[in-house]
């Protein structure tokens, strides 16, 4: 029976592709997992239970049809699997690599408890890498070109999703980004061992070939770049997907000392270096961990990226300071595991009290925390443990406490643009439109720091709405033309 191919979890155990040994992988920025062989992928995909209510699908922000393409993979129908996967996701090869599957699809897989989840992310990566290799993935070729255009601010996941979706319909798409490369955090934020840079570049090229026009180094509202108002007059619709870039500052004494750096600056330098750019701050050592005792403050995915980058840069020691315990950290458990394997020391239930040093940072004074009684939502707030201070030596301190939005109202000079008290742009979720007609937004700038996949979801939702908006505009336009 055809269905018999599936539901093999009862006999086939979970198995990831080969993971490179620690002492091998800590010396470079290559990805740490090998790719599945086709047979291995088919076998792992066949473990899927083919649920009546697929919780993986429900908990996937873009509602990937996971059980369906798992079945197709198990049956060796990779091209169909890819088609179905690509139908709901504009950057599946990236999601397959960096989604925290353990909190999304895989974490909700019904066989997770007791049998270990289906390795959904790895299969997704396999399907899409295969698709690229076999040349199934082709640049967009819309049936017809439409004259109306859209300006997309930000070439991160949300912006790229918007661009891809709208190009399929034949609209003219211009993407503006302040950086010199496409990808946003995907290119400069996420280290290569999680997402090799040529993967992002490959997607960039593909979009370009499909007719998306990128305007790089273009920081809307900044001197030398077009202003927001100008952009609006150029395009029939605008999408803001600028992300959140303002690092949440460490608020303890000594934060101004040299050697205390924000995470993004640290990661960007490292990524640029890998891409072959000239990065003086790295070369001179300010943003390099080589030969240093490193302390990273924070417990999210960015913190994990920092500690693992530091290891690869040749740090003498890497410690991660987090005020809650392992169970309550926001970052992916899988990343913690990798970091631990690679030699990172986690200092749980600890918060920095001060950074100590003369000309530059020499140590972190920290204090122990404990978790209070849970509140009604079950979350436990950390409390200080009196008289529990201790010192950690540190040559480099990386603050990875998260990101806040920049002040877009000022940047764009648009007082009409409604923002929340946290600075995120306020939209109508049913249309993804901001308070300004024809201006849409999505991704981190709306949600606050979030996942790549949520950015894609927002981009797709916004694209659908922009499409309707443009159709309406076009209709009006032709009505006007007829009237004239």
């Amino acid at each position, binding site marked *: *029976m*055809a*269905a018999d191919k599936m*539901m093999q*979890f*009862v006999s086939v155990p979970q198995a990831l592709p080969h993971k490179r040994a620690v002492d091998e992988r800590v010396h470079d920025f290559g990805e740490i997992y090998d790719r599945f062989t086709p047979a291995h992928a088919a076998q792992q995909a066949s473990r899927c*239970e*083919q*649920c*009546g*209510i*697929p*919780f993986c*699908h*429900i*908990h996937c922000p873009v*509602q990937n*049809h996971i*059980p*369906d393409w798992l*079945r197709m993979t198990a*049956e060796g*129908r990779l091209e*169909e699997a890819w088609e*179905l996967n690509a*139908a709901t996701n504009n950057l599946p090869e990236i999601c397959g690599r960096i989604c925290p599957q353990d909190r999304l699809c895989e974490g909700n897989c*019904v*066989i997770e*408890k*007791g*049998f270990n989840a289906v390795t959904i992310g790895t299969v997704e990566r396999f399907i899409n890498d295969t698709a690229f290799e076999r040349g199934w993935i082709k640049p967009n070729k819309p*049936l*017809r070109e439409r004259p109306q255009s859209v300006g997309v601010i930000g070439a991160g996941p949300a912006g790229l999703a918007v661009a891809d979706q709208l190009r*399929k*319909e034949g609209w003219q798409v211009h993407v503006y980004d302040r950086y010199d490369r496409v990808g946003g955090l995907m290119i400069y934020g996420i280290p290569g061992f999680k997402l090799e840079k040529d993967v992002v570049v490959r997607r960039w090229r593909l979009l370009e070939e499909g007719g998306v026009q990128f305007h790089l180094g273009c920081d809307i509202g900044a001197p030398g770049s077009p202003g927001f108002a100008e952009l609006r007059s150029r395009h029939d619709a605008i999408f803001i997907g600028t992300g959140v870039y303002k690092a949440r500052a460490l608020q303890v004494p000594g934060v101004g000392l040299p050697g205390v750096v924000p995470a993004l600056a640290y990661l960007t330098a490292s990524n640029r270096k890998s891409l072959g750019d000239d990065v003086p701050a790295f070369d001179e050592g300010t943003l390099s961990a080589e030969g240093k005792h490193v302390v990273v403050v924070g417990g999210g995915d960015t913190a994990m990226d920092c500690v693992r980058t530091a290891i690869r840069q040749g740090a003498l020691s890497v410690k991660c300071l987090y005020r809650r315990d392992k169970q309550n950290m926001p970052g992916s458990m899988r990343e913690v595991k990798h970091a631990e394997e690679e030699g990172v020391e986690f200092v749980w239930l600890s918060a920095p009290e001060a950074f100590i040093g003369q000309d530059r940072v020499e140590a972190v004074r920290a204090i122990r925390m404990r978790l209070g009684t849970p509140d009604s939502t079950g979350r436990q707030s950390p409390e200080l443990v009196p008289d529990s201070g201790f010192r950690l030596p540190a040559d480099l301190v990386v603050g990875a406490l998260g990101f806040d939005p920049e002040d877009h109202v000022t940047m764009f000079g648009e007082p009409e643009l409604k923002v929340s008290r946290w600075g995120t742009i306020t939209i109508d979720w049913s249309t993804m439109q901001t308070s300004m007609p024809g201006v849409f937004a999505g991704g981190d700038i709306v949600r606050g720091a979030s996942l790549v996949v949520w950015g894609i979801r927002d981009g797709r939702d916004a694209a659908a709405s922009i499409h309707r908006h443009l159709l309406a505009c076009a209709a009006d336009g032709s009505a006007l033309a007829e009237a004239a």
Partner: protein
Amino acid sequence: MQELPMESGEAFVRAYEANRAMLEERGMYAPEDEHSSCGVGMIAAIDGKPRREVVVKAIEALKAVWHRGAVDADGKTGDGAGIHVQIPDAFFRRYVIDTGVHADERLGVGMVFLPRNDFSAQETCRTIVESEIIRGGYQVRGWRQVPVDTSVLGEKAQATRPEIEQIIIGNPDHAINCDTFERDLYIIRRRIEKQVVAAQVNEFYICSLSCRSIIYKGLFLAEALSVFYPDLRDEKFVSSFAIFHQRYSTNTWPAWRLAQPFRTLAHNGEINTVRGNTNWMKSHETRMVAAAFGEVNEDVKPLIQAGSSDSAALDAVVEALVRAGRALPLVKTLLVPPAWSNRIVMPQEHADLFNYCNCVMEPWDGPAALVAADSRWAVAGMDRNGLRPMRYARTSDGLLVVGSEAGMVPLDEAMIVEKGRVGPGEMIGVDLLAGRFFHDTELKDWLAGLKPYSKWVKNIRNLEDLVGARPFEPASYERTDLRRRQAQFGVTVEDMELILGPMVQDGKEPLGSMGDHSPLAVLSKHYRGLHHFFRQQFAQVTNPPIDPLREWRVMSLKTRFGNLGNVYDEDPSQTSILQLESPVITTTELAALEAHFQRRMRRIDCTFPADGSESLRVALERVRQEAEDAVRGGAENLLLTDEDVGPDRAALPMILAVGAIHSHLIRQELRAFSSITVRSGECMDTHCFAVLIGVGATAVNAYLTEAAIADRHARNLFPNLTLQECLARYQEAIGQGLLKIMSKMGISIISSYRGGYNFEAVGLSRSLCREYLPGLVSRISGIGLIGIGKRVLEMHARAFGEGAPVLSIGSFYRYRRGGEAHALEGKAVHQLQHAVQTDSYSAFKRYTEMLHDNEPISIRDLLSFAPKNAPVPLDEVESITEIRKRFVTPGMSLGALSPEAHETLTIAMNRIGAKADSGEGGEGKERFTPRPNGDNANSPIKQVASGRFGVTAEYLNAAKELEIKVAQGAKPGEGGQLPGFKVTVEIARLRHATPGVTLISPPPHHDIYSIEDLAQLIYDLKQINPDAKVCVKLVSEAGIGTIAAGVAKAKADVILVSGNVGGTGASPQTSIKFAGTPWEMGLSEVNQLLTLNRLRHRVTLRTDGGLKTGRDIVIAAMLGAEEYGIGTASLVAIGCILVRQCHSNTCPVGVCTQREDLRAKYEGKPEHIVNLMSFIAEDTREVLASLGLRSLQEAVGRTDLLRQVSRGSVDLDDLDLNPILANVDPGPHPRYCAATGRNEVPDALDARMVVDARPLLDDGEKMQLQYNVRNVHRGVGTRLSAHITRKYGMAKLPEGHIAVRLRGSAGQSLGAFAVQGLKLEVFGDANDYVGKGLSGGTIVVRPLVSSPLVPHQNVIIGNTCLYGATAGKLFAAGKAGERFAVRNSGAVTVVEGVGDNGCEYMTGGTAVILGSVGDNFAAGMSGGMAFVYDPDDILPSHINGEMVISQRIEVPHYEELLLGLIREHAVTTGSPLGKQIVHDFQGHLGRFWQVVPKEMLSKLAVPVTLAELEQAARRA
């Protein structure tokens, strides 16, 4: 039962008429749904000479079948009884002697019911009758007022009693012979009937108008016949034959005319195909011109009067054919032919005869024991499946007695020369003119010789011959084009992957589980094909479904192309037809057809402009006109196709196009001249094929599906299969599916299914149905042409719009976001689990909010409460504890559920005083007593399902309620199969089976083929457990109300109406999705009909099917339910996350699996269920309080507290729930069950036996008792077994500890559930169901010593003996009936011949058959062993070898076993054959076959072949 208030007969009739009129107009009632069934029989003098004895014996016989009818609460109003006899000339002549009648003049007599109270109407009728007689050329010799004794009438019968008169007709023209006189009287009667209808007189009815015979019938108990009609007691009242009938109806409406016999026949059973047959008769009539009727052919049409019952309709057609000059036996064969086409062994001449009959007319199919008589013949015949009992005896003084039961007419055993039965498709008859008796074969030989049928059937051509050498040309489209077309028809990825892929791969439909959670089609926000609005109907109680897998030999998909001819004709032109093996045709086959028909096949384009310039209505008018023109222009075949869809053309829904054309051609009287072939793009699953054929298509070609298969094949998705093989498998899967869908209705032959509208429409506009699908029931109306047109165009725009077409992913079967909503979605599942795990009512409320926020999915989502009172404080509402007692966890078997989950449910429900249902499959004895920690895992409700697994006397006695599962929501009308890998050691123990061996549940209960059979099973169950109530589980469908009324009359205490959404462990996907209707519809219909018939207060109503919240409970109460089954929510509470892989045995949470490793994952606790039930109860209390009600009882039946708040989407014609909300005035009775105890059944012989057996029951003494027995003594030994079981257990007493010797004909269910220690010994014979559920007892049936019969040549026990037996012995010196030892799992038996389907589904025990076996022996037999003595070497052609092997006995172990059993048989029964075989065992051994299930071969302790035996010895 307590005394209930009574209404007077007059008040009842008034209230009934008012209520019925209201329901017919705006309720759920449809009079055509009513059923009746009965006891029937005939006595004939073989020499054809009238005798007084014949009449006397018939009257006596009626007194002995009273239990096959029903009695009203007044104890006197029966459902009708009557007798059909010859006109005793001497009797009537004296009344006309003064009118100048010549002594030689032949007299005709009419028996007439006139309106009693309306004298002017009476006069009108008399005038019509007289003037038509005179117009016909005859003379009126006077009216005679028939004397009647009304003292025997019940009040209700009295209130509706007609004036009964006879008209005597003279025939002064001596030249006119009797046949002409008779035919003229027929025409006169038809004219009178039409005139009376025109005169708008309702209560007029002619029982008979004949010069040969007369019918006396009425609404009294059968025994009162001769009291009511003193005529019958007159010594002058003589006849050469007498047909008698006792009716059991599903209503209580006292309608005199519905009593039987009818003019030619009396019928026990039900014509399943009556809808299709009556529809086709309309088409046949056009061309029916009988030479015999000359100028007046039109006067007899329509042959079938509107509002006829199935039996009356059949009678009308039989009568017309007989009057037109056909021999009665031929008419029976023509209308109710035997099965003949599939590997059934018979003489070629017989097969040719039946083949000829098949060319002339669609069979009237369904359980039918028919007795009929005309001027020459008296015949008794049976349907193809032999689904009713019919026994006969011939005496040495020339009497033939035939009837539903043996022993109805006491005969002197010493004078009986033959005892037999009429088997499936058989017929016996008496030629009264020649004075000769015909056995079945003799009669068929005679018929086959009437015309050169064998020559005629050579005219038949087969499609295969046309296809022959043609090239293979599958449909195919380029990929994008294919997708666009698929998108037009709403095809989804799910359809392709979940349904089509497996169909091609495996050649059968895929399975699913957990019921249907997606919205009704009419409520869906998404495009749904029109077939989604059709719900398959199915047989329950009043007729049985068939097993299409094991009993396919009686079924056929053979489809004929060719004009319908003149049915009256008998000539070779009738056989010039083209025959197809199946109505499912490939494109290649269609091409062959086109080549064959050429210009006689006309193509009709079923597409319409996509720009909306032509409305759907206009388009349908166009195709109708084109069809009409084509047929008038000589087209014999219409090809309806939608392949012209494209950017500018959208597809007409093909079902609508077929319905429109089919109905139009019928109206134009053209349907008989053309076939309708369909080429449809939408058609993919079996259901869609069934709907197309059901609305009139002759053959169907699913070209787009074919192209999709070709596309998948091209993508190498079917490795190792050629495309031709792929298509063949698909055809095979659809064919199997069609058989399954037909078999649900009990229909065997596709030609009788075609055009039969065996569906109920849910959510289709009533006016649309009236116009295009006349005859299709659509009670709540719904989407019409406007909505359908709009949705089709929307799909078209998507399909042919810009951009690549993408098939939607689907969410119909399995949830996908953006597709169809599901009643329980992921969040709600987790929320409910969180609530019950943390005992948090507020969390539960969040869950109910989630459900209430969901989009409408079921009918109740369109309803809201309309309070009449101010709210009351919550603490004034009855307690949680009270409310919880009304909750039930519905039947989920241990076999589907893991033992852990099964026990959790039971323990929890027992803790709160609620009820858990064991489900099918038995329950371990260890669960019958509470555990040391106080937990009680004994299910209060024990299910009795068709498989009867583990249904023992002990099991039945451990219950408080016994539930007869007639149907199951997920797959009503279907059987089930527990695959071998799920039969663990534990399950095998409970089900008395072998681990690892497949267990099959048959579709029907083999002891319920009819309503009176259900009454018998209820009787048996109430005998074996003297305290337990009996519940009958039905599934919601149109007509369930009348079925429920019949069930209530059969003395059920509880009726469960199950909704279509119901959960399941495994069922074909299309069955889950398209069979049955929502419980809201069925429940309200049942409540309305029970109230109408004044039966509501005598039964408890229960419902289930997706009940999840307090709101659901209160709505169910208002629609009539008092108890509520909560299934899926219970499973979710103990961990189910709707993975829907129950059928795969891979449940990851251990709820629905038998795998040890998965069961270990189970985490459910009784507390979770207790919490769930408490939360739902509390939620219910809150709703009640808000409505100002203080208890749930106050809400029962209060539809006035509900109102419709949504009429669905704006593009619907209307969605009208008023039929559901119609409120019947209950008169003086309450709207809920007022009975405190159970509805008791009358005592039979066991009441006496139990008294006489006190020494045994009190002190354990060994005893012997002796009685005379008659057929009215049913279930002998059963009540005694109940007492033994309770005192000693069912396996403690030594064998034969109490011996009961009986003399005579034992009634049905002799020794049912008899336990060890009881030995029943009958000298005489016995009826059906001997040893049903035998639980260790011994039964011996042998002829009386004085009988001259040769035992092994005569029938001694009836049908369906040892059904579900688990242990014990049965020895019978004679032949048994059909379905012997069906589902036997442990009994040992020796008999001397069996009928068809012997040892079917057997899973254990040993059967020795010293004589012939009928067809389809050992079908579905997966366990046990059979030995057949076969001197004529017929077994190889009669055995169904799919699951068994047969071989000569090789191993000595089995020789000894066999010899031992035959020896025991010979000793206990005195069987001469037995003695002979024992005497020379080695001499006979070579004539024995050993029949062993294949699955058992490797599991037997002693192998059955010498080779294996030696191998085993070597290994040892």
